[in-house]
Structure formats: structure tokens, C-alpha cells
């Protein structure tokens, strides 16, 4: 047992003495989650808008207040003639102009119908789409509330049909994906590099000549990374909870258990990579191209799986990250328990055993 701890201690020395390893281990998770959370997110915040209120009555005022108090929009200016609309867009600061038709409140009361025009700057099509969706959602909510209050039934005409969907929030999509990516990186890439480094340096031969069996050697190398990956997972969950207000609806212990399973999967993949690569460089390339890219592109992390061509959908079916993302989303957002994610869990368990089996076999072959 003390041999084993000596091994683990040695491994920690390697990690703590190499600033590049430290940077990857501790700097990257935080940087990635913040970058994905703030920058790549498709959530909108403080979008500058202009309001062109041709009616200026109490209803338009109320709707304007609702829109501005939502937190998504900031009023840049009020517009009072048609020429100013184009001018406002040309400066590139304003993303959206909301136009209320004249006699808005009167029309609502008399005809039960009035219309609002939403003009969005579509030079950034994606943002334009999201911005107009949010605006019309707010208007719909307002309309619904007024209806429930029992006032006269009326209708406000907006063009966009998609309902306000809370789950569209960017961070909710990115946290599980980032978690999968980082755990894959730390566990699979770092272990495969650290094992191949011993091969390259010739120290692996000395270990294999020693009375240590191959299992403790591998375990001794891998256990520090289990610990570090787990710490990383905790950091990511904490960041998403405290900084991005991502909920953890389900059982935290269950979430951590699933995370541990994913870490073990990635580690066994890392061991497998190290058995087929001769140098650190090769281990890194395999990890990068065979793990990182598919994890980002095919797991449903960035691009929806439903929109992929059939062949890529099949490929994505064997991406362990895909199942982990489903598990994390279910637990964190929907509060699901084991009964909902047992299939995904089973897949992860199965593939871990498969990777470990192949690694053990390869490790023996190498000695022949």
C-alpha cells in the first residue's frame, strides 16, 4: 500500500511542478466555462433598442416598461419620425426598433386589435432572430396577463410565433457540454500524455522490471487525475450555479456519481490511447483529433444532433460525451433521477468496461 501511495505522491509532484499541466488543469476549466457562458452563449442581455411610439398612451407606456424592465433590453433613444428609424440602424448601435401604431390604446379598446412592428437589425441574423423572439414573447406575456385580469379581450398583433422558452438560455446548453469537454481533456488527454511520457523517458521500462504489477502502475498514474478531474467538475458546477444561476434541480450526489462515471470512462480511454501511442506528441494528437473535436462537434454540445446528416448521427451515437450531456441536462435542469437516465448510464458503464478490457489486452501484448 505504501508503494502505491509513493507512486501517487510522485505523480502529484509531476503535475504540480509543470506549470503547463497546472494551467491546463486549473486555468482552462474556469476560462472555458466563463468564455462559453458569456461569449458564445445565445442568450441576450442589455440589447440596445429604440422605441418609436406613435401613440404615446398608457398601454404603449406599460408595454414599453415591461420590455425595458425585462433585463434583456436597454432603451437607447426615443424616435419620433420615420426618417430616424433608418438613421438609428445605420449607426450600428441599435439592434431593434419597436414601433407602436398611432392610437394604439384606442384601437385596442374599439376594435380589440392593435399592432406593434418589430424591426430588427439582421446583419447579425442570429441575434436579430433571438431579439425579436424575446420582444414578442414579452408582449405575449403582457397580453395574457391582461386577459386574465378580465379586461376586455383584445389582441396585439406580432409576427413571431415562437413562445418564450426558458430552456433556450445559453448557459444551460453550454455547462453540460463544457463539463464533458473538460473532463475528457483532463482525464483522457492528461493521463495518456503522462503515461506515454514514462515510455519516452524510459522510466516505464524500469517500472515494468520492478516487482510492481502493471495494474498498480496504471492505477497509481491514474488516481491523481481522477481526483483532479473531480475537483474540476466541482468547480464547473459551482461556477454555473453561482455565476450563471444554473439550477441543480436533481440530486447533487447523483450528479456527482454520474460525473465520476464519466471521468472513469475518459480515463480508460486515456489509458487506451497511451497503449497505442509511442510518444507524448502522438498521444496529444490522438486526444485532440479523436476526442476533442468529436466531443465538441458530434455530441450535441454545439450543433443539434437532429440537424446532422444520418451518417453523423450514427457517429454521434457512439460519442460517450453525448450521453453524459443528456444525463447532466436531465439531472440539472429537469431534476430527473436514475430511472430517466439509466440507458445513458448503462452505455457509459459498458463503454468504460470495453475500453479497459482493450487496454489491458494491449498492455500485455506490448510485453510479448
Amino acid at each position, binding site marked *: 500500500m505504501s508503494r502505491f501511495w509513493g507512486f501517487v505522491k510522485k505523480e502529484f509532484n509531476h503535475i504540480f511542478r509543470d506549470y503547463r499541466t497546472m494551467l491546463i488543469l486549473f486555468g482552462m476549466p474556469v476560462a472555458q466555462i466563463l468564455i462559453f457562458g458569456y461569449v458564445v452563449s445565445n442568450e441576450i442581455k442589455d440589447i440596445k433598442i429604440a422605441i418609436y411610439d406613435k401613440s404615446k398612451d398608457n398601454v404603449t407606456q406599460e408595454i414599453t416598461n415591461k420590455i425595458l424592465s425585462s433585463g434583456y433590453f436597454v432603451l437607447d433613444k426615443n424616435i419620433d419620425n420615420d426618417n430616424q428609424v433608418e438613421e438609428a440602424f445605420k449607426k450600428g448601435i441599435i439592434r431593434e426598433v419597436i414601433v407602436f401604431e398611432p392610437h394604439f390604446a384606442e384601437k385596442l379598446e374599439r376594435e380589440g386589435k392593435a399592432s406593434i412592428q418589430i424591426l430588427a437589425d439582421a446583419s447579425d441574423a442570429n441575434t436579430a432572430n433571438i431579439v425579436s423572439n424575446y420582444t414578442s414573447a414579452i408582449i405575449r406575456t403582457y397580453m395574457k396577463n391582461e386577459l386574465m385580469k378580465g379586461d376586455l379581450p383584445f389582441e396585439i398583433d406580432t409576427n413571431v410565433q415562437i413562445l418564450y422558452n426558458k430552456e433556450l438560455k445559453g448557459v444551460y446548453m453550454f455547462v453540460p457540454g463544457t463539463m464533458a469537454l473538460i473532463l475528457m481533456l483532463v482525464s483522457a488527454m492528461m493521463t495518456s500524455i503522462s503515461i506515454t511520457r514514462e515510455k519516452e523517458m524510459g522510466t516505464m*521500462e*524500469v517500472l515494468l522490471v520492478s*516487482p510492481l504489477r502493471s495494474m498498480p502502475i496504471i492505477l497509481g498514474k491514474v488516481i491523481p487525475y481522477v481526483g483532479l478531474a473531480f475537483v474540476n467538475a466541482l468547480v464547473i458546477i459551482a461556477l454555473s450555479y453561482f455565476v450563471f444561476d444554473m439550477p441543480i434541480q436533481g440530486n447533487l450526489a447523483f450528479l456527482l456519481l454520474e460525473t465520476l462515471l464519466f471521468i472513469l470512462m475518459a480515463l480508460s480511454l486515456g489509458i487506451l490511447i497511451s497503449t497505442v501511442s509511442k510518444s507524448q506528441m502522438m498521444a496529444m494528437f490522438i486526444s485532440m483529433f479523436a476526442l476533442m473535436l468529436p466531443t465538441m462537434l458530434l455530441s450535441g454540445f454545439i450543433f443539434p444532433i437532429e440537424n446532422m446528416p444520418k451518417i453523423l448521427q450514427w457517429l454521434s451515437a457512439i460519442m460517450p460525451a453525448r450521453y453524459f450531456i443528456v444525463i447532466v441536462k436531465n439531472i440539472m435542469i429537469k431534476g430527473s433521477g436514475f430511472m430517466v437516465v439509466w440507458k445513458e448510464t448503462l452505455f457509459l458503464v459498458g463503454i468504460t468496461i470495453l475500453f479497459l478490457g482493450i487496454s489491458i489486452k494491449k498492455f500485455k501484448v506490448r510485453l510479448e
Partner: protein
Amino acid sequence: MLKQTENIIEVKNLVKKFGDFVANDNLTFDVKQGEIFGFLGANGAGKTTALKILSGLSFPTSGIVQVAGFDVYREREKVKKNIGYMSQKFSLYEDLTVKENIRFYGGIYGLSGKYIKEKTEDLLKRLKMENIKDSLIKSLPLGWKQKIAFSVAIFHNPKIVFLDEPTGGVDPITRRDFWELIYEASDSGITVFVTTHYMDEAEYCDRVCIMDQGRIEAMDTPALLKNQYNAKNMDEVFIQIAR
């Protein structure tokens, strides 16, 4: 010095093939306890392959190989307890200190912390390296690293130590220094099995075995070999054989 006559390594008809390539072609030889046995040959002659089989890193295709009285194939674990090994990529951790390296390697042989501590102090004193015990290995010159690597390889008092081209890349004077350590180990009863392609080192061995293209071409004491081939030094012997 009086050498015991007991065989500590016995190899009979060892063959190692990689596909069609025969790396070791029917090797048969013995090494006696306490001997310094040199394995000579050009690069690719099959020295390292044979050494890997003897140290249990690789398995023979056929033949009988016994090390320290155990079969390397069937009793690998017992063989491991009795041998030390130093690879040609001299095998210390560059980012650990001298002391940490000794501590680690002592630890994997199951030596107690107290024993390791005492012996480390002793060792550093003998090597005159007390003041660098907390330096990282990567900050030391190659010759020093090799000395430490050798000391680490025999730290657990093995019966045999295998050295795979231990002095690659250093000058003859540093090599000479290194061989002082080998003699010390040999005097304390450790059998030394060393591969090399430096012919000056061949002169230091009790017995040498010259390999060429996977086969043993000659095996005897350096003095008798020089006599037999009518050569001034081992260099000439080697050149005659390799042709």
C-alpha cells in the same frame, strides 16, 4: 578477486523473432555469480533484445532462460525481485529531485522509509553528492545522472543488475568514473550484465560476448580474445569479427 563458479544466468537456445526478423538466433551462454559480463555488438546486433528478455521485459520465442535460478517466462515475478535495471535512456524522473527519485524507486521495491533514508544518506556521501540532494535531476550533468541512475538500480541489493548501454553520450573519463561504481557493485557480490558498443568498456569486463546479426560470434575473457585474434585491443578483435 575470486569469482564464484555458480551460474546466475543460464541461457539455452534462446530465439527471439519479430515476424520474419530473427533478432536473437539461438543464443546459449552462462553468466557466473559476481561476474561483470559484457554484451558487445554494433547497433542492431540484438544486444538490447537479449537484455530485455533476461530482465523480463520481453518474452523469448523459444529457448530456456533462467535468471537467479528462476525461469523468466513462468516465474517472472520472482525474477523481478532479484534484478535491477538501468535502461539506455537512463531512467530517472527529470522533474523530481535526487532524493525523491531514490525515495520513489526504493519505495516500489518495498523498502521501508527508514531504511531508504539511511541508505540514501550513505549513498550521497559516497557519491559526494550531498549538496545536490534537493536539486532536480534535469539540472545535473549527464555523467552525474548516469551515476545516480546506476546507484538507484542497485539500491535494493539485487543479485544481478542489467545495464543497457549505460554510458551512452559521455566522454571516456566520465565512463571510467562510472566503471568505478560498477567495480564496487561487483565487489559487493552483484553480478553485472552490461551491453555496450564502446570497446574501451569491453576491456573492463571479466568476460565478453560479441554479437553480430543476432548470433554470438565470440565469447571469452578480453585477454584470451585478444590473444586468439592476435589483436592489440578489443577494437581490433571486434573489427575482425564484425567483418
